[in-house]
């Protein structure tokens, strides 16, 4: 239909392509053929400079199906770039908001990611954007096109705090492309249950920040939203017909709702960023809260003993709100919303409560990137929650066969 241009001249040089398996770690890699709205980096692939940015990589796939995995990062520089490069008429200006990124490749929406920096640690937030391409989607004389953009659709009001021009400043740290072995597409049943952290590392789940390298288990949902991406071929059992996501919530304790984040992390036993000094400094500022905290923890807040004692208490807290989801559910105070990011249509979500957890079920066939939000309907939830917010977290992601519905977590964990 269209014009067939003739770009070639007698002087064209052979093009360097990325051999597979291969990794692009620098914007100077000659396999990165074309960039648009993207500044090439030296030690990283580069950063996006526009609300729609694109890079195109020459890949020598020889007709093999491939898995493309890209690590993106929202860091302080990304926020700085947003302030500098986003036109002044873009309102509201929320450079530090969560970034919802859509990745199109080879003409289709392939994956999405949600990035949101921790309020207190101010460390970078990372996410893997991962997807599979069939052999015929990556011809050797073509390009692997990686087009990152923000959703054009109107998101519900709970996404008001997300940044517009989401891709501006986002760093592409590295991009790895691996050929998929034929048996990979056949599925590995052993991976039919993933804890949330592993799901996030596989690119299937995006909660805002990739967990630290050794973390396992649950993933907090700072924005109340998470993203589901099409499961990678290697992880999806062929007979799986639905994807079950278990979400749990606990009521923030008085300490959690008032303490600064590093101390909460400390309470929860996680890493605290810049060492103990900062915690100690914060600790001093928190003297007025000690009394309240002491009542909660039922122990003296003498610094050397605090972490262990509090951690112990945390374990009891974890079990404390077990019933809250069910109680909220009964009061019809829960709201679960999902949006198909390719069409912008909202999607009905099948959910129930099992063992104090919210179990969301999605048909595998329907999973394009889906943005899911869990929350409460404020006026109905108020009597149950008081003035304490709910802390949401994803516990696990599990494939289920047709007909089988959500089972209690205990049973599932035994199955592989």
């Amino acid at each position: 239909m269209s014009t067939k241009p003739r770009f070639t001249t007698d002087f064209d040089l052979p093009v360097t392509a990325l051999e597979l398996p291969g990794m692009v770690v620098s914007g100077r890699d000659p396999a990165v053929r074309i960039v648009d709205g993207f500044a090439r980096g030296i030690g990283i692939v580069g950063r996006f400079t526009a609300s729609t940015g694109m890079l195109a990589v020459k890949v020598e796939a020889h007709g093999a199906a491939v898995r493309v995995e890209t690590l993106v990062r929202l860091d302080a520089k990304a926020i700085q770039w947003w302030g500098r490069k986003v036109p002044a008429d873009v309102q509201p200006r929320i450079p530090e908001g969560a970034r919802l990124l859509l990745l199109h490749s080879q003409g289709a929406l392939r994956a999405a990611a949600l990035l949101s920096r921790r309020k207190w640690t101010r460390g970078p937030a990372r996410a893997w954007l991962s997807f599979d391409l069939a052999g015929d989607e990556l011809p050797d004389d073509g390009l692997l096109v990686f087009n990152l953009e923000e959703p054009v659709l109107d998101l519900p009001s709970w996404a008001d705090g997300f940044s517009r021009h989401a891709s501006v400043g986002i760093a592409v740290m590295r991009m790895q492309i691996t050929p998929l072995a034929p048996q990979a597409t056949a599925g590995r049943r052993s991976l039919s249950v993933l804890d949330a952290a592993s799901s996030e590392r596989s690119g299937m789940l995006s909660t805002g920040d990739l967990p630290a390298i050794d973390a396992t288990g649950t993933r907090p949902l700072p924005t109340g939203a998470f993203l589901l991406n099409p499961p990678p071929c290697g992880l999806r059992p062929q007979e799986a017909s639905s994807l079950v996501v278990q979400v749990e919530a606990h009521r923030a304790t008085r300490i959690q709702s008032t303490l600064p984040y590093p101390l909460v992390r400390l309470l929860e036993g996680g890493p605290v960023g810049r060492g103990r000094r900062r915690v100690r400094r914060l600790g001093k500022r928190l003297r007025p809260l000690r009394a309240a905290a002491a009542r909660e923890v039922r122990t003296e807040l003498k610094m050397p003993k605090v972490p262990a004692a509090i951690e112990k208490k945390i374990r009891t807290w974890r079990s404390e709100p077990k019933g809250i989801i069910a109680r909220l559910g009964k009061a019809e105070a829960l709201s679960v919303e999902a949006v198909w990011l390719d069409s912008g249509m909202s999607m009905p979500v099948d959910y129930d409560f099992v063992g104090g957890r919210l179990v969301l079920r999605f048909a595998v066939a329907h999973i394009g990137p889906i943005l899911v939000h869990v929350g409460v309907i404020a006026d109905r939830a108020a009597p149950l929650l008081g003035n304490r917010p709910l802390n949401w977290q994803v516990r696990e992601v599990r494939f289920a066969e047709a007909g089988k519905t959500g089972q209690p977590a205990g049973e599932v964990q035994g199955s592989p």
Partner: protein
Amino acid sequence: VRLLASPTEYGEYLAAAETYWRTNTLPVGPAWIIVEALHQDIRVTLRNLTVANSLRRLMSARVLVVTGTDNDWFEAMWTRFDVNHVRRLCQAFGAEMLDVHELVDSRLNADGQQPAIFVGGVLLDEPPAGTSIDRAVLDANVEATFCRVKRMPRLPEGFANDPEHARVHRRSEEFSKVYEQLIVGLKPIALVTSHVDYNQWGLAVESAIRHGTPVIHTQQTGSLKAYAFFPDKTVGLPTLRAEMTQQIGAYFNHHVWRNRKTLRRSAELVAWRSKANLGRPSWWRGGAAASAELTNAVEREQMRLHILHRFGFDPAAPVVVVFNHAVSDALGTNYESFAGLAEWFEQTVQFASLSGTKANWLMLDHPSQRLYDTTGFFEGLKAAYADVPRMAFLPSQKVPKNILWSIIDLGVTVRGSVSNELPAYGIPVIQAGWSEWSACGLSLLAEDPDSYRALLTASIEGLYRGEALITDEQIERARLWLWFYRCGTDVVSPLVPTWHDGDRGPMLRSLRISMRAVESDGDPAYTAVARMWDRKEPFLTRFDLTSDDAVSHAVPRMHVIRTG
């Protein structure tokens, strides 16, 4: 002239130039050459003066430099125009200077007795009729000048009662009288000018052509490029640019096309370099966004899908890209299918909106539009057609070359240089007007509004049918044009640093060193000017393009040359 070098550097340059030109031109004779120094860029004036002094190696002549400026041009374009710098430059080149703007001012302000013109100590007679210019030509010139200096796409409503318009008209008429007086009085052997449009340049050109004076039109790109119009070679077209279009086309079709096999490798080289934006004309933008890195149709198709999605375009329909010109740029100085650039663009947008879903339309604004339009012409149309689907309005800087090339199926322009660039890479372009290359067979030409619309319709339908709108010969011609424009007609001489050397100290320094360190005879500038002048050729050539031997000596000898 605007001086961006240090006064010391300028002084040293002038000292070197004065000695150089005194010893490298013939003793002054009775004949005159008129040269303009009305542009503020020193590179422009240096090119003019170098051509004039090259002529003074062929004939004993004196050079009269006309210069000066007024508030209109200051407001529209100039930042620092200083006549005193021109005065010193004239001295170095052995030329006399006349501030025509000052003269026009004093004549407009004079009560009764008109100030006389003395050139070389001689009083010039005033022609009895004042000026013999055709009123319609003068009016057209005033319209172009008024639009340009006021930066508006067309004359405003009720311009006849606008005192500003009347003032520009009076001023232009006075310009015409002064130029007439100069041309009739001095009977110059040539007029050397960097521009052929607007009152301060265009009316001099009009006077010269009326009185049979050859006009050499230097080009502001590359090294030394110039077109020459010899009135006895006229093909009878109304404007100098239209004449040149036909003469260049005839020359290209005869001499360059004949040697296409010999020049093939060279044309390919220029086409390859041009993809990386090397050897670009001076007004093309540089930077990474101006490089074309797509290598084949598969890559283009893959990029295309994403870009169409970005613009909200229909992937099943072809993409027509309309390149809006700088709306007040030299109106009416070459043949145009519509009454003005604004008229053309409005009509095209209207046509696009009516053609419904048949094509995707991308309207691109000229990158320098803010220097040519203060009325918001493009933005106004964008707002008026905001609700038309599959139509996008963007400034062209927002669309890098890779993005543009991945979607464009058909380009539309009046005289933009995309109409020689895109065909070189197999993308067809419709021109609603003439440009220097439009008679060289690269683009699709529309003569009038009806045939323009018919051509657009037929082209879009052709794209749906999968027809190639461009032939292999057109692609070959376009690549040859790139070579012809950037190499064959670009004279490399140490006397004319290439445009990208800039207009600051380092350029003057390299010029000074050339004049002091290099002996002069056989300098390419001299031989090229002599060849053009003696043969009355329409442009300067780097070597004799009419000689097959000269052509084959100029290119690498790696081809078996077969002619015919």
